[in-house]
């Protein structure tokens, strides 16, 4: 295998050297691994920074007690279960817990929360959050699942101190408006 020299900032090279020592690896393997990951990310049409951020979100979801399940199974289970007040409370408290978990992981900024929710709510939802409202559009969500997701999102937002002033939920579309701080 042919090798060549490459220039990097001294402080970065020194840190990589420290990590290599700490983990019993070589600087050569760490640098090649990083460059290789960048090349692969590019082949997937993504940049490495985005992949790292997305992977971190997925790690957070996994560590917060979430699971990956086939959508048809979830759909069937939702269809058969009654979405009563008890079930709503489960969804809401699950949202509250997830919101608290995000907070513990330093994810407080609404844009960051938006990014996390895009990754963990439904299939490729279009979510936008501002201090006034949250809009979630996901055409694949049925009526019952839209309601469940809405309640979950209410839980997440309330754990971040945003109280719900009004809500509009229909199949695949959720709009939550938040109370302004001055509002009673």
């Amino acid at each position, binding site marked *: 295998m042919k090798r060549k020299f490459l220039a990097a*900032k001294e402080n970065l090279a020194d840190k990589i050297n420290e990590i290599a020592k700490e983990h019993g690896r070589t*600087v050569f393997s760490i640098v090649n*691994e990083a460059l290789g990951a960048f090349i692969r990310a590019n082949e997937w049409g993504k940049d490495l920074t985005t992949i790292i951020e997305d992977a971190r979100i997925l790690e957070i*979801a996994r560590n917060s007690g979430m699971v990956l399940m*086939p959508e048809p199974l979830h759909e069937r289970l939702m269809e058969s279960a009654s979405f009563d007040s008890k079930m709503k409370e*489960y969804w809401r408290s699950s949202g509250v817990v997830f919101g608290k978990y995000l907070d513990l992981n330093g994810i407080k900024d609404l844009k960051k929360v938006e990014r996390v929710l895009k990754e963990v709510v439904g299939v490729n939802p279009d979510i936008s959050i501002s201090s006034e409202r949250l809009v979630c559009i996901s055409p694949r969500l049925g009526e019952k699942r839209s309601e469940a997701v809405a309640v979950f999102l209410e839980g997440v937002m309330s754990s971040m101190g945003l109280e719900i002033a009004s809500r509009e939920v229909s199949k695949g579309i959720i709009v939550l408006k938040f109370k302004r701080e001055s509002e009673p």
Partner: protein
Amino acid sequence: MPEKVEKKLVVVRADVLEKISEMARRENKTLFALVNEILQDALKVSEMKVTVGDLTNFYRLIKVQKDSGSLILPLDLFLKLVQKWENKEELEKEWFSAGEWYGKYLMAKFEDPLAILPSLLSTSLWHLSEVKMEGKSDGRAVISMIAPNADQLLLELTGKYLEGVMNALGFRSIKSDIVRGVGIIEFLRKL
């Protein structure tokens, strides 16, 4: 006057360097700038106590899972829904056919689905602490699951799901032993 940046030389594979140089040209960046960005990212990842290679691999496998239609859900809620279902046999059938569909998806997507399956299982079955798949020379395959804190019903259903996956990939289940927190399923290649 701009601050002088101290540089150090590091050794890399020549083929990797060639690709990175090409990408730097395409992005209209200097090789030095691009390499520093990448190393900065690698350092950020190391703070998460993983390697950049592991993290990108994790991302790729979860992407396969999400592309196959998997959802991220709170486990406790999912369990509540599962426990509300009264007919266990019917539930098992649902899980088996969901697994079967996933197996067919893998066959359509990968040339050698059995090669990628072990990493996909260990990366995506978040409710299990450990899942391993081992191929035997006599045409058998064994999948073992460990999840000391998992709900027994969920573990059994996961077993059915895996039977469905393997069925689509040409294996039938010959023995399934799922006790509290541990499951071992043996498969034999279908003739």
